[in-house]
């Protein structure tokens, strides 16, 4: 008879050991999977984790890590605030799209005027676009008690339709021979979210992500609002007694996460991506949910988790090309990592008991 027993106190040791154990288990079972596919398991894992960081061309991949990781961290930080308080914004992908559309819209409206004001205005518009899109589920929840999970998720598909419409219509590049997609903002200096220091991957989105991590840390650790968020998540009734206004908390959490997702979209569309196109969104808003939990909703954890996810993407693509591993195997590998982390995480709060149940 095996059963789980709740620990009287969460185990501090396991809280630290869980990620390490998860990585070891992923290496082992992932290696097994690769071996079954007829690939050298050690080489596969070295390719995924070592090559981007310390391989021959690490000088190229390390900056890419920031480019791929920044939107994930930025979005996940916002989501984690709500998740801590039990407010579930599942629609960050939609807010990401709307941020990109608002921001790029402002940039394209100014084309071809060159001014130092264009990019800051785009940033404001991007933040606003994401915020507005997240305020729809927030206001509906506060006013009518609707479920924010459903509303925010459904609004992703609405945002995707807007994106398609903009790529094919209003924002279509007039010099694009009728093909969909906007002008490339990389080629419009005033609107270009260029690297701050060349070839470091450090663009404004990376800076924003780092600032967001610091702010979230201070907010949660030191600020009254952070206390309200934590207490609401742990004990909603106690939160009410201690004077937390749940409506304001909902508006704040959804608004902030929407704003950060919108910023991520704006920094992406004006920088690494460059164009508003039908396939602009590639799932950062959904992957960020994984990143938030992988980082245990802790700002520093999210930063590390975002970089780890970015690493598996970049290393995974290298393994595909160099070793012929199928994309699906890489996705299974990424899934394993999350699965094992959550599985081992269980043992922070529970312990395994063998033997018969004692009758009290």
């Amino acid at each position: 008879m095996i059963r789980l027993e709740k620990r009287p106190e969460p185990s501090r040791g396991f809280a630290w050991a869980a990620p390490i154990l998860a990585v070891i288990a992923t290496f082992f079972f992932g290696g097994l999977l690769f071996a079954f596919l007829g690939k050298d398991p050690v080489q596969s894992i070295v390719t995924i984790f070592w090559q981007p960081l310390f391989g021959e061309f690490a000088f190229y991949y390390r900056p890419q890590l920031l480019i791929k990781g920044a939107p994930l961290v930025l979005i996940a930080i916002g989501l984690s605030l709500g998740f801590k308080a039990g407010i579930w914004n599942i629609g960050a992908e939609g807010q990401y799209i709307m941020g990109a559309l608002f921001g790029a819209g402002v940039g394209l409206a100014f084309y071809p005027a060159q001014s130092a004001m264009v990019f800051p205005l785009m940033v404001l518009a991007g933040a606003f676009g994401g915020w507005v899109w997240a305020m729809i589920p927030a206001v509906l929840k506060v006013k009518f008690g609707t479920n924010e999970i459903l509303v925010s998720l459904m609004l992703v598909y609405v945002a995707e339709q807007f994106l398609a419409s903009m790529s094919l219509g209003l924002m279509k590049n007039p010099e694009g021979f009728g093909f969909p997609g906007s002008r490339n903002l990389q080629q419009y200096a005033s609107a270009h979210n260029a690297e701050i220091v060349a070839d470091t991957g450090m663009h404004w989105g990376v800076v924003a992500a780092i600032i967001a991590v610091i702010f979230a840390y201070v907010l949660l650790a030191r600020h009254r609002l952070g206390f309200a968020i934590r207490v609401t998540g742990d004990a909603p009734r106690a939160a009410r007694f201690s004077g937390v206004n749940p409506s304001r908390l909902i508006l704040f959490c959804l608004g902030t996460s929407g704003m950060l997702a919108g910023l991520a979209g704006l920094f992406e569309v004006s920088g690494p991506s460059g164009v508003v196109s039908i396939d602009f969104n590639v799932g950062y808003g959904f992957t960020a949910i994984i990143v938030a939990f992988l980082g245990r909703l802790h700002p520093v954890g999210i930063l590390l988790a975002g970089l780890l996810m970015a690493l598996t993407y970049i290393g995974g693509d290298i393994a595909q090309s160099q070793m012929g591993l199928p994309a699906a195997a890489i996705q299974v590998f990424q899934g394993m990592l999350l699965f094992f982390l959550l599985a081992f995480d269980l043992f922070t709060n529970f312990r395994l008991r063998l033997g018969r149940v004692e009758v009290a």
Partner: protein
Amino acid sequence: MKLTTLLTSAAMALGLATAAFAAGHEKTKVGFVYVGPVGDGGWTYEHNKGRLAVEEEFGDAVETVFVENVPEGPDAERVMTQMALDGADLIFTTSFGYMDPTINVAKKFPDVKFEHATGYKRADNVSTYSARFYEGRAIQGHIAGKMTKSNIVGYIGSYPIPEVIRGINSAFIHARKANPDVQFKIVWAYTWFDPAKEADAAKVLIEQGADVVLQHTDSTAPQAAAQEAGNVITFGQASDMAQYAPMPRVSSIIDDWAPYYIARTKAVMEGTWESTDTWDGIGAGMVGIGEITDAVPADVKAEALALKESIASGAYHPFTGPINKQDGSVWLADGEVADDGTLAGMNFYVEGIEGDIPQ
């Protein structure tokens, strides 16, 4: 040090290494970037068949690599850079959305040749290539017009872009020629590959009375939906989809990239590669027409094959006037043939098609 300098020195180091190996011993490395999974049964599947054909043709003299499911944007740029860093000599980027990333990466690697499918931006080391799928659409349209009993032909569009609109127009013109009463119902799926959405689109069209379903999406889901409904015919898209023959799939348009990929790889090996813009059709073998099954009456099949012959030989162009635009204004006068520029950017329906192109 700037990245470009680093990249150049890395490329030079590779070049030196190559030289040290004595000419002829180093394999030519060819990379392929795919937008979908190689098992999609359509677009990416055919590009991958082209890759395998290159391997077969040159054996040990080439090494091919590929990455599948690569999103259009910064990820594509990274994957291409990675292939170039790993010593690729030639890289095929097989989706329209890879256009700007291809140009960006090509600038950093002047010695690597790039081939971008379906785009319009070229450089000294970037060629573009595409197939005249609309030639195949003409034959489909003819068969559809002859075969439909309800006079309603359903059409699953992916995105309202020139390539797709060209296909709709070509199919419609030839369906109307075969059957003046035919109507087209068009559904936009806003995806290239999504079996669930494609199946829904096919079901909607069939419910609205369509007994022929044409598709510009890459999965076999519409074929499955048609099979379930019975008495509905379909055509394979991008790939033969012969597993649904003889019914519902009565024929297909096949993208055959193998001859082009082999020719371009050979050009790189021989040092004769030059930047070009290729737009080939049935004649050059880039567009294939899959076997027309016995579900199609013999006379219709014979007409379809004759049409194919005349297009292949160049005797007939699917866009030959008189053709009016949807609003009734004259596009092509009697006997006039559409120029490639207009075709490449086609953003209007021809007369007789109902509905608007989504904006």
